[in-house]
Every structure is written in structure tokens, then in C-alpha cells.
């Protein structure tokens, strides 16, 4: 059908096209040049928090929140992000992204107040203060403020608060935290749903007492001196009995905060308007400068980054709760001083690490060798560097946890790319120069590359690494059983409130080991278990912090995990907004101080 000459023509053409394309790359490619410049405009991230978390007084808890400089009321703020909020029913909110938006319409007994220097203070939100306990945390009493109203103008009463806790026992609420539920039933060892079935069949929970409309008293089944931190979780936010629509409440929660939901189209958009019945004088943390919020979902971080960079039209008044700068655009953003002016960065409460199965690798020296040989730097580089992935971690607790102490037992900051020689020495000490370790990982493109780096680095120290890819959908099922067949597997954790008890106990209390529980290292050291009990009983927050930091050191000494990152956040927002701040508790952008310039 084609003559020879024609085919020769196309042959030449393709070779020419190839040559052209190759020539074209001379102008295009290369990531070399911007690198040095990139470093210059990047502010180093400090390991903040530590002593900056404190418990506020009744005076700190009174509204209104201090004015933001230059702020003015009015206008519409736009929010663009990847996903719709998966849950808005407070009882089903656990994820930070859902929490961030809930702050606009859901209030809890307590909440966190941030000041400009990055200090965090626990204050009363619905309550007049952060609660009082006279018996080291077994009984907690909260008093509600005056002038609190739901969006329909009816008052928020202690009965509503009691009801909000009772409904958490219902069968459709399974996603949220279950600390309070476990502590409010008679026996914490038995399933809490067997002991109370929720309020829908008319039964009440008698461990919550409401002597009058303003007072709530919780009778817990153990000592929990940080229960006032627990109830700051959105998961313990207030739900009115009169408006509880059960499953449907998840899409249309009833507002106690400054805004109410006027429309919510799943996966597309959500619109908020002012709640006129919210009284700023009762609220120590929320401003409500904009008249409206319009939120749009379904945009990947590549797209939002692009839109923030273009800064056109409504995007000028846009921010994002969650979407970070797309890693492949990080260099560009860092090199643009104008963009950097409307960027946010900070340390999130998330830590990531690689669990070492202490049931299978019983020799502590082998575990130490793993940490010593670990390619932390390479892994960081593979995931976009410090600014996109996180700071290389050396401890269990994140710097955002009260009491955090920085230490580096395995010299990971000096030799972040791994120290095969030192690891070899440790293996020699263990009398096992070539141990085989089974590394199980979540099979994603990035994790596959990370695995390559791990194999290479551990191999240099003499390890034989067997890599087992696991399906993303069943990853946690596979590593969940106590008798799993893997030695090393990735994990992540964020303390549910910034004290050591939720950062450490669920993961390293040896008495909690069972299938599918967060103690994936299966570490069971009597001295650590004892120390946990002692730290839990310390009423003074700062003293308790010190005790938890000591436990942190004990765990690292046992080499139970290879710490990976203290996760960082790096995001952009539009030029027409002021008061956009990074929320270190949620680890993303906060909407509470935002205003339209």
C-alpha cells in the first residue's frame, strides 16, 4: 500500500524527530541549577513545641479571641482541596482534615489556643475552664459558659453534652476515638458496647452526671489526669439531642460554632454561612471574619499548587486545609520570593517509623544494627526532601508532644545515609554477621523505590533483605496478627492529644499486645510497662512530660523502631487572604483567623 520511498521518508522522519527531541532536552531538563538557590530561601524548621504546650486558666478561656492585626470582616473565602470531608458527625471524626473544618461549626468542652510565637494552650471552649479534678483524674467536672447557643437559638445545655457522649456507643459510630467510651463504662477490660448500647433505646449512661443545666461531671473508671486533653478532640464535640439524625447527621451536622452548613454536595462542594446565634464573647479561639466559605473538592495537589501559583480570580481568596505544595513543584516555589510570602511551613504531629518485630528479631544488637545501617537520608530524598516529607526523626515522640526531648542514640543525624561499618560491628557483637530480615511494605510506586534503597543500604552492612510487597488494601491486616511473619514494616502515628500517654502507651505497652493492635513492634519490657503506669499517674503535666521522655529513651535503647520522619507541612494560599496560619495540632492550614484583605 505504501511505496518504499514513502517508508524511507517516515523512517528518516522518526529518526529526525528523535534527534530533535533529544536536542530539545538541552534547553529543558536538568534539576541542577536551582538547588543551591533553593536552600537559600528556605527557612530551617525548628523542632518546636516541647515546653510550649501548657494548660490555660479560666481567664485564657474567655472570649472573644484576640483580634488579628489588620483583619476585617466580610467577603467570601474559598477552600480548594483533594477530598471531600469523609465525616462531619463529630463522633465519627478522627482524621485531622475532618477536624480542621469541624472547628468552624463544632465545639468541644476544651480546645487549643495558638499564639503568634507558636505556643499552644489548652483552654475551655464550651467550658469555662479546662475542667477540674480533685482525685488525680478519676472524676472530672466541667461548667458550661453563659450564652452558648445552637444554630437555631436554643441553649447548649449539660444534657446535650451528656447525650453527645452517650450516642458514641451506637452501632453506626465506629470511626472515632474510643478513649472516653472505654473509660466511662464500669469495666475497661470488656468491650464497651456490651456494657452500654447508646441512648436510642432510651437508656442513659449513669457515669455522666448533670446536676444542673451548666454542670457536667464525668466519673471515669481509672486515673486519667489528661482527660481534659481527651475531650478537646473533635470526636467529643457537641451534638444536640433534638437534631440528631443518626447516620444522616454525618452530612449535615448542627452548628454550635460561628458557621453553619448551607449546602454540601458530596465530593463537589460545601458552602458555609455565618451562624448568627454564635456569640463571639463565648469563644476564646474562633474568629469569624469572612461572611461565607465556599469549599471545592477533587483537586490534586498538582492542581491546587498550580492555581495558587497563578493566583487568578477567586483563587486569590483561596486557601487549602490539606493539600501541600506538589513535591515536583517544590523547587520552583522555594525559588520564588513572592510565592514564599504566602507559604506556610511547620511540623505536624505525625511521626512515621519502621516497626521492628521484636518477637522475631530478639537480639537487640541486630535491631540496633538495622537502625544504624538505615538509609534515612535516601528515603527522605525519595519522598521530596525535608520540606515535603519531613525531618529525619530520632525519637518515638514528636517534637509537638509535651515533654519531647531531642536525642540521637544511633548517630542518625551525623550519618543519615547509614553507617554500614558501625552496623557491621554491631552484627559482629551479636555473633550474626549476615542475618536475614523480612521487610514487608505497601506496594505503591514510592514505597517500591524506598524498598530498593533499604535493600541496598542494609545489604552493605551484611543483612540479607527479603522484601515482601503487600497490597495497599490489606496492608494492616497482614501486619496486624501478633504472629505475622515479617521483621520490619512501616507505620505512622499521631498522638491524639499532645501528651506522652497517647504517643507512647498504645504502641509500646506490652500488656496491650494482641492482633490488630497498634503495638506492632510487640515490644514487651516489664520496666517500660511499669514506667508507663507511673507516668500515667503523674498529675502535673510538665512532670509527666519528663517521665514520658525518659520512656522514649528506653524504647529507643531497645531499638524497637527505626524512626523515619517528623512530618512537615509546606503549603500555599492566595494573595488576597490574611490570617492564614499553620495549625500544629492538626498539622495543616487553619481557617480560624482567616480574613479577606
Amino acid at each position, binding site marked *: 500500500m*505504501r511505496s518504499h520511498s514513502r*517508508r524511507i521518508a517516515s523512517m528518516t522522519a522518526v529518526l529526525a524527530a528523535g534527534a530533535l527531541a533529544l536536542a530539545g532536552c538541552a534547553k529543558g531538563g*536538568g534539576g541542577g541549577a536551582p538547588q543551591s538557590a533553593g536552600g537559600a530561601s528556605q527557612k530551617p524548621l525548628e523542632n518546636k513545641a516541647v515546653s510550649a504546650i501548657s494548660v490555660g486558666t479560666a481567664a485564657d478561656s474567655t472570649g472573644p479571641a484576640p483580634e488579628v492585626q489588620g483583619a476585617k470582616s466580610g467577603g467570601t473565602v474559598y477552600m480548594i482541596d483533594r477530598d471531600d470531608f469523609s465525616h462531619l458527625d463529630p463522633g465519627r471524626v478522627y482524621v485531622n482534615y475532618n477536624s480542621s473544618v469541624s472547628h468552624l461549626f463544632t465545639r468541644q468542652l476544651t480546645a487549643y489556643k495558638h499564639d503568634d510565637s507558636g505556643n499552644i494552650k489548652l483552654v475551655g471552649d464550651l467550658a469555662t475552664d479546662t475542667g477540674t479534678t480533685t482525685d488525680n483524674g478519676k472524676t472530672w467536672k466541667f461548667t458550661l459558659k453563659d450564652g452558648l447557643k445552637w444554630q437555631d437559638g436554643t441553649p447548649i445545655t449539660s444534657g446535650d453534652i451528656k447525650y453527645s457522649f452517650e450516642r458514641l456507643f451506637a452501632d453506626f459510630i465506629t470511626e472515632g476515638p474510643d478513649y472516653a467510651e472505654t473509660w466511662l463504662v464500669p469495666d475497661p477490660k470488656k468491650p464497651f458496647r456490651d456494657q452500654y448500647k447508646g441512648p436510642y433505646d432510651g437508656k442513659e449512661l449513669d457515669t455522666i452526671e448533670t446536676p444542673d443545666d451548666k454542670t457536667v461531671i464525668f466519673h471515669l473508671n481509672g486515673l486519667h489526669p489528661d482527660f481534659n486533653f481527651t475531650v478537646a478532640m473533635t470526636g467529643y464535640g457537641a451534638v444536640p439531642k433534638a437534631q440528631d439524625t443518626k447516620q444522616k447527621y454525618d452530612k449535615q451536622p448542627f452548628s454550635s460554632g460561628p458557621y453553619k452548613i448551607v449546602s454540601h454536595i458530596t465530593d463537589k462542594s460545601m458552602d458555609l454561612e455565618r451562624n448568627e446565634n454564635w456569640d463571639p464573647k463565648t469563644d476564646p479561639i474562633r474568629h469569624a471574619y469572612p461572611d461565607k466559605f465556599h469549599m471545592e473538592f477533587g483537586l490534586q495537589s498538582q492542581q491546587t499548587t498550580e492555581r495558587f501559583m497563578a493566583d487568578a480570580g477567586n483563587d486569590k481568596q483561596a486557601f487549602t486545609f490539606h493539600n501541600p505544595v506538589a513535591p515536583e513543584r517544590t523547587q520552583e516555589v522555594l525559588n520564588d520570593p513572592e510565592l514564599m510570602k504566602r507559604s506556610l511551613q511547620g511540623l505536624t504531629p505525625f511521626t512515621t517509623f519502621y516497626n521492628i518485630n521484636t518477637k522475631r528479631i530478639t537480639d537487640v544488637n541486630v535491631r540496633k544494627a538495622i537502625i544504624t545501617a538505615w538509609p534515612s537520608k535516601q528515603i527522605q530524598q*525519595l519522598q521530596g526532601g*525535608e520540606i515535603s516529607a519531613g525531618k529525619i526523626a530520632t525519637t518515638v515522640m514528636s517534637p509537638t508532644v509535651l515533654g519531647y526531648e531531642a536525642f540521637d542514640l544511633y548517630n542518625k543525624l551525623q550519618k543519615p545515609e547509614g553507617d554500614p561499618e558501625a552496623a557491621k560491628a554491631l552484627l559482629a557483637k551479636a555473633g550474626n554477621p549476615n542475618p536475614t530480615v523480612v521487610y514487608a511494605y505497601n506496594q505503591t*510506586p514510592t514505597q517500591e*523505590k524506598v524498598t530498593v534503597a533499604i535493600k541496598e543500604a542494609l545489604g552493605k552492612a551484611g543483612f540479607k533483605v527479603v522484601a515482601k*510487597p503487600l497490597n495497599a488494601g490489606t496492608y494492616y491486616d497482614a501486619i496486624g496478627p501478633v504472629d505475622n511473619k515479617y521483621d520490619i514494616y512501616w507505620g505512622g502515628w499521631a498522638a491524639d492529644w499532645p501528651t506522652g500517654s497517647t504517643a507512647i502507651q498504645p504502641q509500646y505497652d506490652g500488656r496491650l499486645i494482641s492482633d490488630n493492635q497498634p503495638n506492632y513492634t510487640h515490644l514487651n519490657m516489664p520496666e517500660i510497662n511499669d514506667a508507663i503506669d507511673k507516668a500515667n499517674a503523674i498529675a502535673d503535666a510538665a512532670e509527666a512530660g519528663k517521665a514520658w521522655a525518659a520512656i522514649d529513651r528506653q524504647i529507643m535503647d531497645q531499638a524497637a523502631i527505626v524512626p523515619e520522619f517528623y512530618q512537615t507541612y509546606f503549603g500555599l494560599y492566595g494573595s488576597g487572604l490574611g490570617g492564614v496560619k499553620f495549625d500544629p495540632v492538626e498539622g495543616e492550614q487553619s481557617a480560624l483567623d482567616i480574613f479577606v484583605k
Partner: protein
Amino acid sequence: MTFPSSTATDAAAESADTAGTAGSGSAVVGRSPGQLMWRRFRRDKTGVVSAIIVLAFFLIALLAPVIAALYGKDPYTTYGQNQPGLLNEFGYPIAPNGGVSGDFWFGLEPGLGRDVFTQLVYGIRTSLSIAVIVTVVSTIIGIAMGITSGYIGGKTDYVIGRVIDTLLAFPSQLFLIVFLPVVEAAFVLPEEETPVWLRYVSICVVLTVLGWATIARLLRAQVLSLRAREFVEAARVTGASPARVIFKELLPNLWTPIIIQATLALPLYVGAEAGLGFLGVGMTEPTPDWGRMFQVGANVYHSDVTYLLFPGVSMLIFVVAFNLLGDSIRDAFDPKTKR
């Protein structure tokens, strides 16, 4: 990833009316059809050049370890991470053009810093071997099903015909990505390791299952028309067994469309295999694979477009050469199509 469908039917339409002539018509000249074809092919310069290029690709695939040894690098070592000064803090090559240099001829892979040249060379092995296996197996199945269907006819023909229709009417790419994990999960428990060979076999199986229908349909039509011809009738009347009729009478007349179809399908399978890698359901690390190179390339092109060019241009050259070779073979077998 383009899957055999339109191009294949196109060719089917073209060659359908000429299949018979290739066998019977050539006898007059006194040379075997093979010799004739070879003579015609040798005169076709584009065909010869394409053949050399295709052959070179196969040779590179076979000799990958030798090439890597001579060049002094391998596709697994993370050079960029082991030697400081090659990658910047975001994992991109520091040298311009994706780190192309005397040491790394085609530059470095962003992130892991592996050598692109050896990745590419070893990647050919994966892509080509899968494509060849799938082409051979699906062609054999296609021949068996097509001849059975056409020769036996009746209910068998109806059933096979419906299966073929269903397979051809389906969005095969969708099925590929949907069924690959399913096939794999059928073989391994979640807590077991997924061996590399299993993924390899699953890809082959899924591509074959979705690929044999085209050739089967084509051959069925051919057999139907051949069955009615005198020489087949004659063989049957003289009491030849069905096996003899199929192997001695039918098959020799079907080689032309079979070979044409196979040459058309092979580059499509190379593309399909790479497409799977691009979508993240193809060969897994650390097996070098072109598809995964495209996946990386599509992620890093903002900062390092050079990386994308090497697999892209290599694949373009291979597919163009193979398509031209296919055209030449078709012309050589079948001079009538050349108008």
C-alpha cells in the same frame, strides 16, 4: 497501551481476500512461497533497515548483561545515592540534561539515582520477552480456536463466536488493570510474598486472555472460505482424517495471515505492557521496566524532561521499525496489496 483491535481488523480486511492466492498461485513459478517471499523482501530497503533495527533491539535484550558489563554499570545500584554530588536534595540530577555525562550516558534516574542506560537496556528484556510470549501463546490459542470454530462449525462455532464477540467488545484496558490484581490475588494469600515471576506470568496471562480473540476471528473467516474450496473438498472426499486436512491442507494456507497478524500484534503488546507499568500495575521494582520509566518520567517531567525522552524515543524507534517491518513482510508475502 493500544490493544489489538482496529489495526488488526484493518489488516484482516485487507488480507482476507488474498489468503488463498499466496499458497496456490505461486506454484506456477516453480519456487516455494518462502523463497519468493524472501526474494521480494530483500529488495525492500526499508524492510531490511527496519529488520536490522528490530534485530538490534532483540540482540540488545539478549546481550543486556554483556553490554552492562562492558559499560561497567548495572541497573540496580543506586549510584546517585551512593556518590554525593550526583543528586540534589530533592533527588534530581545536579548535572544538566538529567545528569547525562561520560559516566552515565543517558543520565540518572531522579530519586534513586540508578543508571538510565542500563535500566533501558534491561527494560527491553522485560518488555520484549513479555510481548513475544504473549504474541506466541495468543497466536497459538487463536489458531486453535479459529480453526476449530471454522472447521467444525455448528454449535461449537456459535459458542466460540459469542466468546470472541464478547471479548472484542470490551474495554480491554479497563479489564487489564482490573483483573491483574485479581489474578494475582488468586495465587497468593495476602500475607505471602508476591514473587516477581508471578507478576510476570499474570501480565502474560491477562494479555493473552484478552488478545487471542482477534486472530481467532480472522482465522475462522479464512477457514470458512477455505473449507468450501475444491482442494479441501477433495482431501475430505478421499478420506483424509480431520487432522490431516487441518495440518496438511488448511494450515499451509493460513501462514500468511497468521504471520501478518503476529507482526501487527507484537508492537501493540510492547505498548500494552508499558502501559500497565505506567498505570502502576505492571512489573514491580526492582525489575527494570520501560512502563515504570514512563511512570517516573510523567512525574518528574516538570524538572527533568530528559529522563522521559530516553524510554520514549527508544520505544518510538522500536515500534516504528517493527510496524514498517510488518508492512514489508506483508508486502513480501502478498505483493497484491501493494498498489
